[in-house]
């Protein structure tokens, strides 16, 4: 919680617990939303495309934050849950011809059930062992898809679907997809922000802090741990549905364990335990990846005589790994923590501390 400016006080609990306390904060927020939705008008198409994929990742990572950051359940299978959502969504779209506003939630539910299944062991298993159970989900998922009948789940050849349609609008250009994705992302993130402030959110935090103490206080661990996985996987499933409509082709090999690992990286870099952290971490790592893609060929072209091209591209990998390590060594609490410190510094300036 950042500090408030002088003179701002509340007489009701509701006022105290609000996210936006001052008019200035409201104004900033509204301006942000306006900028977000008018971005296609003045940003290059490349940035819109980057934001499309980033939006999909944001939804998945926010879900992961709920499962892992708020409830403390290690989850390295988020990408498999996303894939499950993508396949359920694509299967319903291809076989039953349902519109996107039915298939995407259906994809979310399918992934949620799958995720809850792998979350059931969480009652007994903890820590790194749970991490491996979720990796098991990651390994079993493609095998499962390839064993199901081809008409249903695409088997080895994947599923192809038509673009999303809403009445006369077809979402098949980057800009139209941007609006669709941003809209859905805003809705999901809004739910996430609110979820963590309800009783359920507090239960999650209690489980994270000490699950045995929570059980003693009367919380049904089985229900809430499974619920954490359910909700996290639902978010992943929705992200998967969006992915399906983005590429319009889903294949079993698009959801790898490396994607799961990147998701975990995003919540750590962003900061465990805050939805804003999840968003910031996602954006930071995505931008880093894109920057590296851009830098690699640039370096090769600028220094054609310094070693082979391969060395530069591999060097990019080194830079990526190095940045992550350095970041974690020097700021283990993540970007959200830094952001809070920044806000506090702004408030108390010119004093160094309150």
């Amino acid at each position, binding site marked *: 919680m950042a500090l408030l400016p002088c003179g701002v006080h509340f007489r009701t609990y509701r006022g105290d617990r609000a996210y936006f306390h001052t008019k200035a904060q409201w104004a900033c927020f509204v301006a942000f939303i306006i900028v977000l939705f008018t971005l296609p008008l003045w940003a290059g198409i490349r940035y819109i495309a980057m934001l499309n994929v980033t939006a999909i990742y944001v939804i998945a990572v926010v879900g992961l934050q709920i499962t892992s950051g708020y409830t403390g359940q*290690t989850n390295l299978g988020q990408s498999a849950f996303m894939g499950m959502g993508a396949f359920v969504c694509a299967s319903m779209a291809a076989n039953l011809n349902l519109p996107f506003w039915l298939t995407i939630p259906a994809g979310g539910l399918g992934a949620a059930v799958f995720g809850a299944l792998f979350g059931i062991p969480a009652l007994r298993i903890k820590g790194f062992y749970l991490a491996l159970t979720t990796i098991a989900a990651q390994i079993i998922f493609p095998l499962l898809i390839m064993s199901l009948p081809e008409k249903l789940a695409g088997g080895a050849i994947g599923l192809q679907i038509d673009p999303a349609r809403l009445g006369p609008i077809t979402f098949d250009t980057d800009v139209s997809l941007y609006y669709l994705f941003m809209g859905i992302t805003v809705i999901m993130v809004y739910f996430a922000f609110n979820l963590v402030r309800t009783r359920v959110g507090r239960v999650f935090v209690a489980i994270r802090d000490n699950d045995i103490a929570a059980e003693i206080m009367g919380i049904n661990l089985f229900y809430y741990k499974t619920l954490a996985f359910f909700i996290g996987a639902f978010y992943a499933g929705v992200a998967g549905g969006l992915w399906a409509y983005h590429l319009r082709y889903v294949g079993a090999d698009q959801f790898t364990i490396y994607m799961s690992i990147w998701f975990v990286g995003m919540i750590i870099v962003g900061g465990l335990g805050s939805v804003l952290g999840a968003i910031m971490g996602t954006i930071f790592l995505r931008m880093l990846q894109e920057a590296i893609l851009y830098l690699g060929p640039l370096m090769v072209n600028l220094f054609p005589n310094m070693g082979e091209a391969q060395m530069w591209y591999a060097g990019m990998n*080194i830079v990526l790994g190095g940045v992550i*390590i350095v970041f974690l060594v020097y700021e283990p609490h993540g970007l959200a923590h830094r952001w809070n410190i920044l806000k506090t510094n702004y408030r108390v300036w010119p004093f160094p501390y309150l």
Partner: protein
Amino acid sequence: MPDALIDLIQYTVAGALKGMLYALVALGFIVIFRAGRILNFAQGEVVVFGGFIIYSFLSLPLFPSLIQGIFGSVPWWLFLIFALIVSAVFVSIFGLLVERFVFRPMIGQPIFTIVMVTIGLMLLLQGLTIAIWGGGDRPFPFLFPEGAVRLGPFFFTRSLFWGGILSLLLFVVLSLLFEKTRWGLKLTAVAEDHAVSQSMGISVKRSIATAWIISCLLSAWAAVVFLNGMTLTFAASTIGLTALPVALLAGLESIWGAPLAGVIVGVGESLAAAYLDEYTEGAMSEAFPYLLMMLILLVRPQGLFGWKIIERV
């Protein structure tokens, strides 16, 4: 002996030998976890990196001719030992560097941060491997001569066979070291609680460094057994992910649980591939280690021989 029985024994023993290799890599995980409570996801890359270092040594034209010059014609197992000793020095240096700069700041951090740092390390090592040695494939030298060992009607890959036997010896030695010697006791104390062991006068940093060096040496040995005569490439690091269920099945703190878990997983995988794969089109042998691990974890959440941590509320 009836054919079906011969087959059964063949698959079982071949699976057990493969399982010993998994156990070797898993032991790398376990030794590090035991000392610092860090699960090192980059263990596969460490194995490959060790393999590359050994390869570089054996390709230097100087090295074999030096050995030949000093000792005349040398039997293959002596050459192997020399190669391993020299590479061990360099692998240890590498291990120390990683430990100092990557793992020491991570002591006491939450699980996630540690996981992420090892993943960053994974990316770093991948990039480093490609940058130093290039992305091309190259053959790993035959430190164990090529061919199969024949015992009656059974065939076993020579490297896995001898590697398995030697690894078994290694496991026995290591578990004795960790359980019976004073030095092993110190490492165990550090594994249990850093703060308490420091107040007892045990250097946590040195213990972790030692554990890291042992782990790197184990990985180098695993690389020799695994890659003998095969293609050496950075893509071989997937062995790390295959060995992870073995480590967790054994329990992350148990040294002599590793070979047992390895044998169980290896035999199970081999038998599943032989008898169940035709019905499931190959899915069972891939999924088997994980399914088994999940089942056993449900019954014993700390792995077969892991420490049962008593949580105080």
